[in-house]
């Protein structure tokens, strides 16, 4: 293996965490803001980063952050979790998933317990690993839990495409892909909406570009700023949003130019649209959002696990107390849920927003925002 260069260590990460830049950006936000604004970061990774670095507590009181539905683990419908569990429990299958899906509670159990009980459930880092597993186990069915936003779609599309090209037939996917722009439309169309500006998720935009957001900014008169994940990126995105709001502008701007271009990643977009087609999709806790998902195109129906396995009559039962749907829309904060921190904790999650490390409930729990007081900044 090539030895790492000394200067390669955390290049393009450390520079965007420099305290003096963070301080200066915070000062600039404080100087710019004159009125209260509610701004939503769409992506769960950004929610987590704001809290991990304590940035939310350093913002002026006028800037209220609400946390969006951009955690794929959180919005994957319970029904699909139950379907995954049913498939993973079959003795003839190897069920592959990203690690964070294993502890998400289904109606009765979770994938982790299926694994503990002897099910062949494997955590993969890249979807392409499933291809290798399928070729090594030709007498078994390999099923991949293909969830995620636009960021994850290129990898999942490549898995299907490669399996198709190479004639690997013992592989299929349980698909629940979701897309950001229809979710923004749903949030802004909701009668209770308070969100006045958005930080768009940088890595979603790395794939899709940001031209799709331009009609939304225009139609709903909201600024949308493409934002990265390091402290300097997050604050720069916020500053640009606040500047627009204070000036009465509503444009799409890019605060993550080192990674994102307006047109996005063309080769990735091409393969996504070759393999997937748009569809209506149910979001856990929110409901069906029109045109908000991707499913396999009919040409790739052979790779659809829902067609390959008898799992259509699954009945699901959501927790009656969980208000994660309202939290995912920015309408409520976790401490407003009666179960938060008592009946529902990361060790015993009742809802998906508590189980995923990117879920808002989990982030509030982990960083000690147990009540309104502790969440207040001053």
């Amino acid at each position, binding site marked *: 293996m*090539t030895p790492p260069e000394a200067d*390669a*260590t955390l290049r*393009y990460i450390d520079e965007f965490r420099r305290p003096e830049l963070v301080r200066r*950006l915070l000062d600039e936000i404080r*100087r710019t803001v004159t009125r209260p604004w509610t701004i939503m970061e769409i992506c769960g990774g950004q929610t987590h980063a704001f809290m991990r670095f304590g940035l939310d507590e350093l913002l002026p009181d006028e800037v209220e952050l609400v946390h969006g539905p951009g955690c794929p683990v959180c919005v994957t419908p319970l029904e699909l979790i139950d379907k995954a569990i049913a498939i993973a429990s079959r003795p003839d299958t190897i069920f592959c998933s990203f690690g964070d899906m294993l502890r998400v509670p289904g109606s009765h159990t979770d994938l982790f317990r299926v694994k503990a009980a002897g099910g062949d459930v494997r955590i993969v880092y890249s979807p392409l690993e499933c291809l290798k597993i399928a070729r090594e186990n030709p007498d078994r069915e390999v099923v991949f839990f293909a969830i995620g936003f636009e960021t994850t779609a290129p990898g999942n599309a490549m898995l299907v495409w490669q399996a198709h090209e190479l004639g690997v037939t013992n592989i299929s996917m349980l698909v629940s892909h979701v897309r950001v722009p229809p979710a923004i439309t749903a949030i802004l169309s909701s009668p209770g909406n308070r969100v006045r500006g958005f930080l768009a998720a940088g*890595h979603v935009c790395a794939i899709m570009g940001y031209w799709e957001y331009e009609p939304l900014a225009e139609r709903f008169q909201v600024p949308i700023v493409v934002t990265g994940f390091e402290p300097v990126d997050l604050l720069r995105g916020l500053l640009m949003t606040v*500047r627009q709001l204070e000036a009465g502008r509503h444009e799409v701007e890019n605060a993550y130019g080192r990674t994102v271009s307006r047109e996005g990643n063309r080769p990735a977009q091409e393969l996504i649209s070759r393999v997937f087609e748009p569809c209506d999709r149910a979001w856990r806790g929110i409901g069906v959002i029109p045109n908000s998902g991707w499913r396999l195109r009919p040409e790739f129906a052979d790779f659809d696990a829902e067609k390959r396995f008898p799992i259509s009559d699954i009945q699901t039962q959501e927790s009656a107390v969980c208000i994660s749907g309202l939290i995912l829309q920015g309408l409520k904060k976790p401490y407003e849920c009666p179960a938060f921190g008592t009946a529902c904790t990361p060790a015993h999650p009742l809802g998906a927003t508590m189980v995923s490390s990117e879920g808002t409930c989990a982030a509030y729990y982990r960083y000690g925002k147990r009540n309104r007081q502790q969440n207040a900044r001053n």
Partner: protein
Amino acid sequence: MCLGIPGRVVEIFERDSIQMGKVDFGGIIKETCLAYVPETAVGDYVIVHAGFAISRLNEAEAQETLAMLQEMIALGEESGDDTA
């Protein structure tokens, strides 16, 4: 889930007729699919998500951003209005 990490491409090869590579994340080297960043050369930085490079890092743009922020510090309270 949408975590993406910058790393430096140290090797490029082909497997099953798609472009793959090895990417160095500060000493940890991981195999990565480079099919979506076909113009990438060894030495380039890419943003990697779940085993796939999703973008080639625009190093000139990164330096420009940092220079601009540095300038903002220098301007201090006089304050430039040009973060955008």
